[in-house]
């Protein structure tokens, strides 16, 4: 169980735990799993781990540039905006993330249980 967060940024550990070009997951109790991506250019992004198409686990896709190709039916999703690229339409919620002194922080307020409005 997590201890109470300090401020609004939640420390989810060191950047080194996610290899470049891969993603790891962060289950949310009572909410939707989060995928944290590390691109090959060294940026980090957090999104709900669910494709806008048919909820494929984006964390398992191939990461290229700042997009990920969904492992189920190859939609390309922008890691920056969560928007589906090209002809496909749909959007996955993104979670603000920052890197500070080699550690990753998620915006606490943005981690929400499924179905609840943001300002719970």
């Amino acid at each position, binding site marked *: 169980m*997590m201890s109470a967060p300090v401020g609004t940024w939640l420390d989810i550990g060191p950047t080194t735990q996610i290899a470049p070009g891969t993603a790891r997951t962060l289950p949310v109790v009572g909410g939707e799993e989060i995928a944290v991506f590390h691109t090959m250019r060294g940026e980090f992004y957090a999104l709900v781990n669910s494709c806008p198409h048919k909820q494929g686990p984006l964390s398992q896709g191939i*990461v*290229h*540039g700042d997009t990920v190709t969904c492992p189920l039916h190859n939609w390309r999703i922008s890691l920056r905006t969560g928007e589906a690229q090209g002809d496909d339409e749909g959007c996955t919620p993104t979670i603000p993330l920052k890197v500070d002194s080699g550690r990753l922080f998620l915006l606490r307020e943005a981690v929400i249980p499924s179905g609840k409005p943001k300002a719970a």
Partner: protein
Amino acid sequence: MNAPTKLPQPAKEKLVVIGNGMAGCRAVEELLERDPDRYSVTIFGAEPRVNYNRIMLSPVLAGEKTFDEIVINSAEWYAENGIELVGGDPVEQIDRQAKSIIAKSGRVEPYDKLLIATGSDPFIIPIPGNDLAGVVTFRDLDDVDKMLAAAQQGGDAVVIGGGLLGLEAAHGLSLRGMKVTVVHLMPALMERQLDEAAGYLLRQELESRGQTILTSANTKVIHGVEGKVVGIELEDGTKVKADIVVMAAGIKPSTSLARSADLECERGIVVDDNMVTSDSDILAVGECVQHRGTCYGLVAPLWDMCRSLADYLTGAPNGYEGSVTSTKLKVSGIDLFSAGDFSGGDGCEDIVMRDAARGVYKRVVLKDDKIIGAVLYGDTADGNWYFDLLKKEEDVADIREGLIFGQAFASGGALADPNAAVAALSDDAEICGCNGVSKGKVISCIAKGAHSVDAVRSTCKASASCGSCTNLVESLLALTLGDDVQTGPRTLCKCTSFTHDDVRRLILEKELKVIPEVMQELHWTTPEGCASCRPALNYYLLCAWPGEYEDDEKSRYVNERLHANIQKDGTYSVVPRMWGGLTTPDELRAIADAAEKYGARTVKVTGGQRIDLFGIKKEDLPAIWGDLNAAGMVSGHAYGKALRTVKTCVGSEWCRFGTQDSTGLGVKIERMTWGSYMPHKFKIAVSGCPRNCAEATIKDFGVVCVDSGYELHVGGNGGIHVRATDLLCKVETEEQAMEYCAAFIQLYREDAHYLERTAPWLERKGLDWIKSQLFDDPDAIKNYAKRFRFSQKFWQVDPWANRAGGAHKDLHSHLAEVRPLSMENA
């Protein structure tokens, strides 16, 4: 002697051209296009070779092109057009009174019109040591050869000058394995083309590639030992070791010949709007001229000059009005564009966009609602559009809001439609910078029948040099022809203009060993490729370099990365191997236990004679694999572009019709082939008689046992398009059946395109081709099989055991678990 009587011919005027470079030859081409019969042409060139694309010397140095690939006009071209080329014989004197020139060889050539196109000379900074052996310039092929010779010895290179030329030299030498230091006088790289921000990004990128960049650095002396360079010393005392020093500190118009003939010269040879010098029979074009006070150092202006010159010489003068230039750096992987004036200042307005995450910097400078300059770094897709607006002096007030986001956005159109963007370009917009080809020219060449990229390349040369405009040409083809475009061999994916076959061949030829290297060397147009090319490259490399290549997990589709099949709910299925479809009570017990322990929601017998456990969580995979391993089972690769199953029937051991031990042979074959990655999945079957209960004739490789031996069938498929196999041959022994199987697989592995199963592959290549590969050379079977077995040494390791033993834990475990704030508070 009796000369044969000649028919009187209209006397052609005699045109002599000095300089067989880019401008000289282009001028002649333009003339031929307008009036091929008007002049009889002789070209003198100081270089002993045909005309080539000088700007492509950089890719030649970098090893991305060969000299043959950058030749513009071959010897045949001169011959066909009746042009005499006098190569390797520089002109030394112009006798204006006699209207003739004198070359170094002593040859005297009279002219009616003389064209000077002597280009530029590299600027040699006047410091001690600048004449030592090992100090080279970067202007022609001989220079490149000198640099290549030096680079072969390895060691250190110093490049003096951090402009376009210097950086391209540095890039080439560094790709050739030298340790490179760039010494630049000014505080920022390419300061004439870039502003500070872009210069900084560029510098960071180059440094991250291992180059040392010294700015505000004034070279004081070049040190030598025994007449050969050993290093340089800067004004501030810094010393840098060097086995070669490249002077790339600038160029100056080559005017000495003109000066000695008393033609009016300032910085360059002064010409009027028709490119005529102070002598009305002598013209000049290219870098050697000064027009309306300006000397140019890029190719685009000389295309314009040559058009005006040819118009004038064929009696239809049009007048050259000067050119606005833009610059691109030809260093693979660095996107950089600059055009016009961006020094800013009074009345100027900047629009800037930075995207640090993407490493993008864009700046457009406006004056009176017109674009006067642009600098783009990291994303240069809109360079041509800005440049077009700039040249046309278009009023951009209406689109100012969206201007910086690029053409698609600003024109409010479909954001990602490249065709619309290309359609919007004007007819004289430049498509191919390397060869100076406008949109109008490409379209007319398409209209005349060039219906593929290759055809366009060979007709008007657009996209024939560096290839960076290939996508523009493709768009033009699509716009002009609609569905009639001939797509030629398909490229591997959108990131490259190479086909699968090209890529496979070049990986071997250039000995490319890792994915980024392939992308770099083969001009990938995206920094990291895409979900199509990455898995393909990973496979091609692992096939090409068994034992050497380290598998790139992040370039694998999820199934191969997780060694299980992903299901629609994000869980996985687990299929342990059952050799030849055989199992034992112990194995079945272990499977049953695992199914219960890890909550498999469905247990199913597959179409491939084994058992599939569905609904396993990714966290549980290593553990269930560990349990199955403990019972002696390994991965079935049901998820892989790899050997899947070897299906067997009961065969002679039990079946009343069985002719051979089909089960036993199937097990042996599976033991030999399991673990091998292939272009696509690969299925094998062995049937004990022609009744073919194992369905061997719809498998990639099928064996049908008969009394006298084994029929080997290939290229079958039971999937989307059912295809029955072709008979490859018949063999007598089990050993032969196995040897041929290994050989056929290896041929498929080495030749097929990624994601091409044996059936379409065989149809593409033809059964005869396959047979000739395997049978023409009596050693072929042995050699292919040997290569297969060698590769298997490295790939017959159970990936499950690895993971069960703790490898790649990160792929199977979560980061911390979190709770939404609302729940915490509740």
